[in-house]
């Protein structure tokens, strides 16, 4: 099986190693990974802030770059939701949408893999569900299942499904509200070694707020964590 990886702009810049881990993980599952070089940004920032022509241009670009892909896999819930759920609305056509998946969704639903390895034995993790993965893609069980099967304990977090406050331009227009939302997440966090999420945007938001407040917390992408599970050690 062959997939085209779409790393997204945040994945390219801020989570480059995590994106590389996604490649390692997929290859270890006998998936051939290809990286179309022309890819850039899915257009979500423009779409979310109401800039339709710009969003459309980026979507068309992405479509053109990925048109030959058998599957598109994204290590990002919100960008996967952009391709799967928003593109049809934005462009009036579904090409690509039905072939695009968030990483954990792809592994469980398409590859049918439910266990990766026991590399997370004894780890206590808190999982943050990104809003778009959760509510647009309906991805809830898949990441949790893979983490648990890796031996990790997912500590119960009453706010695990509440928004981190990122929201693209929202976090810039109303930084005080946005950071208050991040605080609500951080202040309800149970004792865990690492906070894991499938979304770079959420991780960036939570990590930046934690750093500002001087909180010593570890944040890690789902891709890297799943690769740890697979590889057998950190």
């Amino acid at each position, binding site marked *: 099986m062959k997939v085209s990886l779409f790393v997204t702009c945040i994945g390219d*810049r801020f989570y480059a190693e995590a994106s590389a881990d996604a490649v390692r993980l997929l290859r270890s599952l006998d998936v051939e990974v290809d990286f179309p070089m022309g890819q850039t940004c899915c257009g979500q920032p423009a779409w979310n802030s*109401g800039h339709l022509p710009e969003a459309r241009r980026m979507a068309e670009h992405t479509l053109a770059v990925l048109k030959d892909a058998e599957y598109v896999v994204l290590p990002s819930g919100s960008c996967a939701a952009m391709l799967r759920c928003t593109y049809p609305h934005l462009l009036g056509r579904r090409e690509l949408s039905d072939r695009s998946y968030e990483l954990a969704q792809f592994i469980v639903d398409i590859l049918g893999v439910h266990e990766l390895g026991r590399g997370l034995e004894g780890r206590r993790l808190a999982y943050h569900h990104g809003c778009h993965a959760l*509510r647009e893609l309906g991805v809830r069980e898949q990441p949790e299942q893979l983490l648990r099967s890796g031996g990790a304990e997912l500590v119960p977090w009453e706010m695990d499904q509440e*928004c981190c406050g990122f929201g693209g331009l*929202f976090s810039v227009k109303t930084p005080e509200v946005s950071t208050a939302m991040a605080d609500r997440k951080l202040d309800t966090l149970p004792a865990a070694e690492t906070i894991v999420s499938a979304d770079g945007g959420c991780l960036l938001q939570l990590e*930046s*707020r934690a750093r500002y407040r001087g909180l010593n917390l570890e944040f890690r992408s789902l891709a890297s964590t799943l690769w740890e599970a697979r590889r057998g050690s950190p």
Partner: protein
Amino acid sequence: MEVHSRDYAKRARAILRDTPGVREAVTAATRSFDDHRRSAFAELDGEALRDWAEGVKSHALTHLDRYLEQAESRLMERGAHVHWAETAEDVHRILRELVEREGVRRAVKAKSMLSEEVGVNPLLEAEGVEVFETDLGEYIIQLLGEPPSHIVGPAIHRSLEDTQALFSERLGTATDASPEELAGAARGILREAFLAADLGISGGNFLVAETGSIALIENEGNIRMSTSLPRVHVALVGIEKILPRLADLSTFLQVTSKSATGQPVGTFVSIIQGPGGSRGGEPDGPEELHVVLVDNGRTRLLADPEAWEALRCVRCGACLNICPVYRQTGGHAYGYVYSGPIGAVISPGLVSLEETFPLPFASSLCGACAEVCPVRIPIPHLLHTWRERAVEQGLTEGTARSLMKGWSRAATHPRLFDWIERAMAVLPDGISRRLPMLRDWTRGRSLPRATGPTFREIWKDGIE
């Protein structure tokens, strides 16, 4: 009511900075409302029920003219007076004439968002009428001179301590009075007002076309009293409140109550068909019932090809309760009577996008509201729609627009894009902190430095 929505960001900042207790009180209250809603829906087929409720409201809206005429005839047959108001000024005129004709001196009011919307209290006070808000929460904010902060719990932003201080100053209760004692003090004053008032003003949760019934849901009994004790009852009802049949009402009463507070139904429900007293051939009750059917922007919203769906709203507050943005500030940040997700999608239609455009942007688009709305209003979709229009009409800041233009140009030129992504790693902090968007982002956040190679560079080097 005056509209201050253009200052959303400023107001939100001020609330978080100056009154941190508001965030705590609002979060606690909304979470508790939401928990109750959740348990109530756990014993139902909520999804199918929401489909049904959506269908009934959409049906009513697409046949609104017919049902309003039907409701009007039923009410008139029962001896009620039916008024039509296109604007807030029309409502004012109708009330002013009534006050003069009936010699009204004292009015008791049962919680009504519409009366806030059209500014009933200032009007009546200017006419020399003494006005008492009788819902305990409304009474508290009336004493404070504040607008409601939530469509179901107007005073949820106030703590017990706040009310202790307020009542001790204004009503002379002990500074450490218990909630019972505080409620007792308010009850004493308001009971006298109920018995002495000439006029009772209410809103209406529903207007049933088939029977002309105005239905009102509450927990305290103040609505029953306001609509039963004074000689004249005026009900202000938005034209979108129509339900076709009495059989629809029984389900909507339950769905609304469950969505609002998790109760099977509110403690008291009034279903009013006409005047009571000698006019209605009954031992007591108001001699006159005036029903004011209010447009005030609703037909404009109805004409909107997208936003008309928001008229299905039953004002249960479930979308506010689940909203992580609303939870940080409560309703006052929004600068208008309707706040939270539903406020952000109806205010631009009811008032104007120009005066309220920051509200649709006051959301992280997390989508939680869409999951709880009992009439399936596509709130995130409507937030998008208003955002698009605001950008199209040039209402938003130029910096965001140029940034998106620039970003989309870069994103359609992979080599330029690649160069920007790599440049971010070497950008000195001093410069990045001065970039327009980044500057705001780093207020309260310390971005981790992305100094390593980009994924593209890693890929080119080969991944082991």
